[in-house]
C-alpha cells in the first residue's frame, strides 16, 4: 500500500486514543486509554475528571502508538484530530495537542467529525487482517452510542444525508439507566448484554416507540416503561422499591435485560432495514459503542443478509471510541483537500455534514 500514513487523535469523551493508520484503512497502532473504571463510582462521566485524565494520558498514549507502529513523526504524513462533537473540556485537550505536534513537525492538520469517525470504522483493517471490499455506496450508516443514535445515507465519501435520529435519549443512555435499575454495573450496555445472554425465558415484552413515517427514534418512553416494569418485578419478588436495597433474582434480571435489549434491537433493526430498502442501499455500516452489542449485531446482520445487503460491523473494539476511526475518516478528508489552521477550536455541538474545503 502506498496511501498516506496518518497519526489520529481522539479525545471527545472518556477515551484518550491515538492511532497510526495507513491509507485510511490499515491500522498500524490503535492505543486506547479508557476511563470507564475512573467514572464507574460516579455512574457516569464527570467532565472535569475526564479532561484531566486526557491531559494525564495523551503523551504516553502517543509514545505507545508510535512505538507499536514502529514509526516516528518523520514517517507520518498528517495529523487527524476529532474537533467535535463531544465534551468541550475533553475535545480541547486532543485538539490543542494535535495542533501543536502538527505545527512542530510541519505536518498538515486534518479536522475530523467524531460521528463520521464511527461510520468510517467500517473501512478499517486490523494489522495482519486480510484485504476485503470497502463498504459499497449507496449505504446506510447507523451510529448508536451513549451520546448519539442516528441514521444517515451516504452516496459517496463524506456525503451525509441525515435521515433521522433520537428525539430524546441516546440508546446507550437507556442501557446505562436500565442497567442501574437492574442493579448491574456501569456502563450498562455490556452488562445488560451479558445478563440477557443468560435469559432462559424470552417472553418479557417492553414497548417499542415506532415514530411512524419518520426515521426518528425515541428511548425516553422505554426508559419510563422499564422503570415501571422493573418496579413491578421487584414488588412481585417482595423486594423494596429502591434497587440498592436487595437484588432481583438472577433469572428475573436476565429476563428483564433480554426484554429491554430486544425492544432496542427490534426498533433499531427495523428502522435501519427500512431506510436501506427505501434508498436502495447496497450496504449497511453499523458503528458506535452500542454496536458492540451482540444481539444487535446478530439481528441486523441476519436481516441485511436476507436482503442481499452487505453488512459491515467493525469488531467491538472499533465500535467504541478509538483513534483509528478518526484516521480512516481523516484520510478521506485529507484526500478531499481539507485542512485546519492553527486556529482550529473544539466544536462541542458540531453537526455531521458534508465538509467544505476552505
Amino acid at each position: 500500500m502506498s496511501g498516506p500514513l496518518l497519526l489520529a487523535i481522539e479525545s471527545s469523551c472518556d477515551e484518550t486514543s491515538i492511532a497510526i493508520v495507513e491509507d485510511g484503512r490499515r491500522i498500524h497502532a490503535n492505543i486506547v486509554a479508557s476511563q470507564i473504571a475512573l467514572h464507574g463510582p460516579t455512574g457516569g462521566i464527570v467532565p472535569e475528571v475526564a479532561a484531566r485524565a486526557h491531559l494525564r494520558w495523551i503523551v504516553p498514549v502517543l509514545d505507545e502508538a508510535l512505538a507499536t507502529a514502529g514509526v516516528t513523526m518523520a514517517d507520518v504524513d498528517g495529523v487527524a484530530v476529532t474537533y467535535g462533537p463531544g465534551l468541550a473540556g475533553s475535545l480541547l485537550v486532543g485538539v490543542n495537542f494535535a495542533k501543536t505536534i502538527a505545527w512542530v513537525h510541519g505536518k498538515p492538520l486534518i479536522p475530523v467529525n467524531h460521528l463520521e469517525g464511527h461510520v468510517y470504522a467500517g473501512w478499517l483493517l486490523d494489522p495482519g487482517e486480510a484485504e476485503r471490499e470497502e463498504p459499497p455506496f449507496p449505504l446506510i450508516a447507523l451510529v448508536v452510542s451513549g451520546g448519539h443514535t442516528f441514521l444517515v445515507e451516504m452516496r459517496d465519501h463524506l456525503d451525509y444525508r441525515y435521515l433521522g435520529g433520537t428525539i430524546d435519549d441516546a440508546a446507550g443512555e437507556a442501557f446505562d439507566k436500565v442497567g442501574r435499575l437492574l442493579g448491574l454495573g456501569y456502563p450498562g450496555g455490556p452488562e445488560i448484554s451479558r445478563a440477557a445472554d443468560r435469559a432462559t425465558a424470552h417472553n418479557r415484552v417492553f414497548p417499542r416507540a415506532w415514530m411512524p413515517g419518520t426515521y426518528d427514534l425515541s428511548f425516553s418512553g422505554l426508559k419510563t416503561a422499564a422503570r415501571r416494569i422493573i418496579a413491578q418485578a421487584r414488588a412481585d419478588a417482595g423486594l423494596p422499591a429502591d434497587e440498592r436495597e436487595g437484588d432481583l433474582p438472577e433469572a428475573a434480571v436476565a429476563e428483564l435485560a433480554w426484554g429491554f435489549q430486544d425492544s432496542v434491537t427490534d426498533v433499531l433493526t427495523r428502522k435501519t432495514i427500512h431506510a436501506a430498502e427505501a434508498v436502495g442501499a447496497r450496504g449497511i455500516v453499523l458503528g458506535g459503542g452500542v454496536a458492540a452489542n451482540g444481539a444487535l449485531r446478530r439481528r441486523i446482520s441476519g436481516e441485511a443478509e436476507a436482503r442481499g445487503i452487505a453488512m459491515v460491523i467493525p469488531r467491538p473494539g472499533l465500535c467504541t471510541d478509538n483513534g483509528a476511526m478518526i484516521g480512516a475518516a481523516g484520510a478521506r478528508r485529507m484526500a478531499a483537500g481539507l485542512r485546519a489552521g492553527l486556529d482550529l477550536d473544539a466544536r462541542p455541538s458540531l453537526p455531521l455534514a458534508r465538509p467544505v474545503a476552505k
Partner: protein
Amino acid sequence: MSARPLLVIDTATTHAVIALGAADGSLLEQRRWEAGYRHGEELLARVAGLLADRGVAAQELGGIIVGTGPGAFTGLRVGIATAKGLAHGLQVPIVGLATGAALIRAAAAASGTGAEHLVLVQPAGPSDRVVSRVGQPARILIGGAELPLADDDCLIAVDLAGRAPDDATRLGEAAADGLAAALLATGAARLAAGDADDLARLVPEYVTLPRGVRLDAPDEGVVVSGGKGSGL
C-alpha cells in the same frame, strides 16, 4: 547548561500570557491578551507569532514553562495541552508551576511587600473564590464567605474587578503583569538544576471540582490497551 531560549505559557487567568526568556531566567519579551474563552483559537498562533517576530525557530527552544493554575478550566486545558505538545514535539524538558504562587511572587516584587503577607484571591466559577498564600495549598471559599485575613495581610485580587477593593485590584493587575517574569525566574532555575517535571504526569491544579469528586489518584481507573505494553 543549555543557553537556548525558554518559552512561558500561562492561561489560568482571563489574560493569557506567553513569553520568551533567556536560559538565565531573564525576560526577553512577553505578550498578554484578553483571551476570554478563545484560548483554543489563539494560543498556538500567538506562540508562533512571538517566535517568528523574535526570529527564533521552535526547534531552538530549550524548555517549556507552563502555569498549572488554579484558574479557569478552559484556559488551563488549552495551555497545558499546548505546552505538552511543544515539549514532546521538540523533545525538550517541561516545568509546571503553580500560577497562584507565581502571582504572589510577582505582587511581592511589584509592591516591595514580603510575600508572606500577601493573600491572592481569584474567582472560581460564578460565585466562589480561590484563596492562595505562599507555602499553603489553595483553598476554595464558597459563595460570599468572609476572607480569612489578618491585620497585616495584603490582598491581591485577580479577575475580580468590581468585586474587590480597588487597591487589591491594582495589585492584582501588577501581579498579572509580572506573572511571566515570575514563572520564568523559577522555571529557568529549575531547568538549570535539571529539575524538570514528568511530561506525562503534569496536570492542572484543580481546586474546584463537583461535590463528591475525588481529587487524588489521577492514574487510577484508566486502562490502556492496544499497544505492545512498552513502558506504560
